[in-house]
């Protein structure tokens, strides 16, 4: 861990971000949604495939959706081979991303502890560690005293409601500065000639048989060769315009930060069982989140009792947090699927692709999905890493059930 005072390692902002162009009449590729996924897709379309006649259409401001609201945890310790492949591909890209983007992203590999609180948690955790190792992903099982050594402020007493029985540990996991990640991708895409168009909401589509010929937007009609959806929690709204159904449900997911504190928390700690996870941001805030609010919602806010429960769990696990003041809380709208895995690939329209359903955990996938989705768009066929995540799996039954490794924990 750095010995600098909190915040000292934050870089200066650059004097130039990106152009703010008027939309052209038509593009080879129209990406709907200017969050991390849309911007990363744009970057890799240009970099890996030389496709630059591309627009990213964003209804608000760039990366103002979940990208600006997430708690930035990055890890690849997922259970199934399909998930391990895409998340590990992404983690490897994170490890070189600062160089690729020529932009600081403050990627800090401080490790993640996923706590176990019951006998069954222990069995599931050890199983996941072994599965991770078989996939070449760094993973360890730690006993409570080893947990305490990595994170001294954690309460490993046996006298609490859900004592810490151990944890899985992935040392290469970490956090990054989400805004900088978005701006880095945006600058690169812009430099390549891709148009990033803000304040441009997609309101519908013009359709010719099983092809989409254009998008109708709040700034006029725009023709397109291919449409790539990257609208996270709002994907159902867009698919409704096309008469396409997908098994997605949108929920508010809340997070909060404390005031700035001295560096007290050196890693990331997550607990599915008591529903809290926490890391300490570069400047010093404790950043915390929990599970989604139960009901469907698009309001970008959630219920207070969820926060109360999450705080109760946090204070029991970290007694020193009792003195921290809550600075602010907020919510994003995340799209969850029945198997807690994303939906990527073809739709019934030949030239419309979907990337959605990342739910509570898609930030960590940002470079990886940008890479694979760009390949999918360029070749008209899913990249092998995303092929298992087709919409068709709900019909064939080949689900990628990641509730154990994905749901709640991010």
């Amino acid at each position, binding site marked *: 861990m750095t010995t600098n005072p909190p915040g000292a390692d934050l870089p200066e902002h650059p004097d130039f971000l990106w152009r703010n162009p008027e939309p052209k009449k038509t593009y080879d590729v129209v990406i709907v949604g200017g969050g991390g996924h849309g911007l990363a897709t744009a970057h890799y379309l240009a970099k890996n495939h030389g496709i630059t006649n591309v627009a990213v259409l964003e209804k608000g401001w760039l990366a103002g959706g979940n990208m600006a609201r997430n708690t930035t945890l990055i890890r690849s310790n997922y259970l199934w081979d399909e998930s391990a492949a895409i998340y590990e591909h992404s983690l490897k890209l994170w490890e070189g991303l600062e160089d690729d983007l020529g932009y600081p992203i403050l990627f800090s590999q401080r490790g993640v502890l996923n706590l176990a609180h019951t006998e069954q948690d222990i069995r599931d955790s050890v199983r996941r560690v072994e599965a991770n190792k078989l996939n070449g992903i760094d993973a360890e099982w730690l006993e409570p005293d080893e947990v305490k050594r990595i994170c001294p402020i954690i309460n490993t007493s046996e006298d609490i409601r859900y004592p810490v029985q151990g944890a899985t540990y992935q040392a290469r996991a970490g956090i990054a500065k989400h805004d900088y990640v978005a701006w880095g991708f945006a600058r690169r895409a812009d430099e390549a000639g891709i148009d990033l168009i803000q304040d441009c909401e997609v309101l519908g589509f013009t359709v010719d048989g099983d092809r989409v010929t254009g998008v109708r937007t709040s700034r006029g009609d725009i023709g397109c060769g291919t449409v790539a959806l990257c609208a996270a929690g709002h994907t159902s709204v867009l698919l409704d315009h096309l008469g396409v159904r*997908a*098994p997605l449900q*949108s929920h508010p997911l809340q997070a909060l930060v404390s005031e700035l504190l001295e560096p007290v928390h050196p890693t990331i700690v997550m607990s599915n069982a008591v529903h809290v996870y926490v890391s300490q941001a570069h400047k010093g805030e404790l950043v915390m989140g929990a599970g989604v609010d139960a009901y469907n919602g698009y309001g970008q806010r959630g219920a207070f009792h969820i926060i109360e429960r999450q705080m109760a769990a946090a204070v029991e696990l970290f007694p020193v947090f009792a003195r921290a003041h809550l600075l602010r809380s907020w919510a994003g709208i995340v799209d969850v699927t029945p198997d807690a895995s994303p939906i990527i690939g073809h739709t019934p329209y030949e030239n419309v692709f979907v990337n959605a359903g990342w739910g509570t955990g898609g930030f960590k996938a940002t470079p990886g999905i940008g890479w694979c989705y760009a390949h999918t768009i360029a070749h008209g066929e899913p990249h092998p890493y995303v092929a298992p995540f087709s919409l068709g799996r709900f019909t064939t039954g080949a689900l990628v059930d990641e509730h154990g490794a994905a749901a709640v924990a991010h």
Partner: protein
Amino acid sequence: MQLIHCPWCGPREEVEFHYGGQAGVAYPERPAELSDQDWAEYVFYRDNPKGTFAERWSHSAGCRRWFDAVRDTHTYRFLSTTKPRPKEVRV
């Protein structure tokens, strides 16, 4: 936290309730005739509108009964809550 109007008990705090997803998803009448796609739709697919949505809620920490609600998923406001309608009797 909002007050939710249980049709049997009246207004109670949100923490007493459990969310049950979309209302009116009926078990297929002729299950043997369903295609894989039909089964997928029945098991996995639910509407996800931004706006009014017919839902099921249960007053799980109160009378423990299920009821139907219409709620706006954008404002989260409950527009109505009603006792489930009795099934039509078929002859």
